[in-house]
């Protein structure tokens, strides 16, 4: 059975990608940002996920305004890096997992999440920058990736509650897939930032830190947060943090926070990175005990 072992959040600032691509990661400004993701790479090397489900948003690359899907699941075998105006990023082609993705699509649609199936899609910095932050810059990405693109560009994006419940449905889909796969769900983007209009440059660290606290301990509080509050408190583009709730919804109610990093700024944004582990072992032993009890009961009744 496939299972979700952990969830992580990661920034997807395009300038981080540019810093990597132009060899600027050693500069003091960028060193501060990248140092916060050293632990992530170590952790990933140990976690060895077979598949990462990456919740992200496209930035006028694969989707223009011709169609704006709220949730779009990448079911292709490959997702080439998009040309965002200065040539595609020099990163490996992202390898999908079509069978698993098709299974997830079928399962969550029957669970009443009417997502769009995408069989051909290029992926922009929104997806590739988080992969760099979590895996560095290898020749090939070390695991398969299922992109889940969420509309957070046009208002209204899906509500936090909807995102959280989609996470739940994804978990159910994952756990009904017969192959033994270790799955990590990544929520990307954020944290507070506004890049448009006269209020551009807004950062609200107090909001961000409370958001991170609640993400670990009390996500139910976050799912009630209204869109207007995200935009007011965390900036017009800060609303993309609803994507993190898909990740959180896919995890156990109680999780272990194994790492957290927060810094301001990376380009125009606050950067928040957190690693949350499911308490799989305990859950697994609980299930075993329950199964053993059930077996005893069945034997007795015979």
């Amino acid at each position: 059975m496939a299972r979700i072992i952990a969830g992580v959040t990661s920034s997807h600032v395009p300038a981080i990608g540019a810093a990597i691509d132009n060899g600027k990661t050693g500069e003091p400004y960028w060193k501060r940002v990248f140092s916060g993701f050293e632990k992530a790479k170590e952790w990933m090397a140990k976690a060895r996920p077979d598949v990462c489900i990456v919740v992200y948003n496209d930035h006028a690359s694969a989707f223009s305004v011709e169609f704006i899907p709220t949730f779009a699941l990448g079911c292709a075998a490959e997702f080439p890096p998009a040309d965002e105006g200065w040539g595609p990023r020099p990163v490996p082609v992202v390898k999908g997992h079509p069978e698993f993705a098709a299974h997830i699509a079928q399962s969550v649609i029957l669970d009443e999440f009417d997502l769009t199936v995408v069989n051909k899609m290029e992926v922009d910095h929104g997806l590739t920058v988080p992969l760099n932050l979590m895996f560095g810059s290898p020749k090939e990405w070390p695991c398969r990736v299922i992109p889940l693109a969420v509309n957070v560009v046009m208002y209204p994006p899906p509500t936090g509650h909807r995102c959280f419940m989609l996470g739940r449905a994804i978990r159910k889909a994952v756990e009904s897939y017969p192959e033994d796969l270790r799955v990590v769900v990544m929520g990307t983007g954020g944290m507070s930032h506004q890049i448009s209009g006269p209020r551009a440059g807004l950062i609200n660290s107090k909001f961000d830190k409370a958001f991170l606290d609640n993400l670990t301990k009390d996500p139910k509080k976050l799912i009630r947060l209204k869109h207007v509050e995200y935009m007011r408190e965390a900036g017009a583009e800060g609303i993309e943090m609803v994507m993190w709730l898909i990740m959180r919804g896919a995890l156990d109610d109680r999780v272990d926070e194994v790492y957290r990093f927060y810094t301001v700024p990376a380009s125009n944004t606050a950067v928040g990175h957190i690693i949350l582990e499911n308490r799989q072992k305990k859950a697994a032993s609980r299930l075993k005990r329950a199964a053993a009890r059930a077996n005893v009961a069945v034997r007795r009744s015979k």
Partner: protein
Amino acid sequence: MPRREQAYDDIPGTFVFDAERSRQGYGINMFCMSLMKEENRKAFKANEAEYLKKFNLTPEQTDAILKRDYNRMLELGGNIYFTAKLGATDGHSFQHLAALMTGSTQEGYAKMMLAGGRPIEGNRSKSGLGKPRTAAKPKSKVRSKSRSKRG
């Protein structure tokens, strides 16, 4: 029909790219999207006003684009991820656009970001009613309700 007033219109310095603006700004955003191709960038640069005729823009939208009035583009339905492509076509960094939109210099904007960004205090609402709060205490929708009725 005038634009319906929304709860988020009270957020200062912000043009939310909502479904209504998305409809209104379709031409602006499709124009910006066209700039992803080198041949289109060249055609636009050769004769801007002529090139813009292909996109079914209003005179106000055309004017905002020709003047590189980025805030006005947002107000008329442009989205920042799209209008940034126009900035890139002009050879500008995003920081240049941010400085333009915020009425700052590039240096001043960069300094502000390094110092922790634009503070939330004093920037919550036009009316001053937005109370300080954190993600830990999400609530309050009173304002939005009373406003939307008027809209």
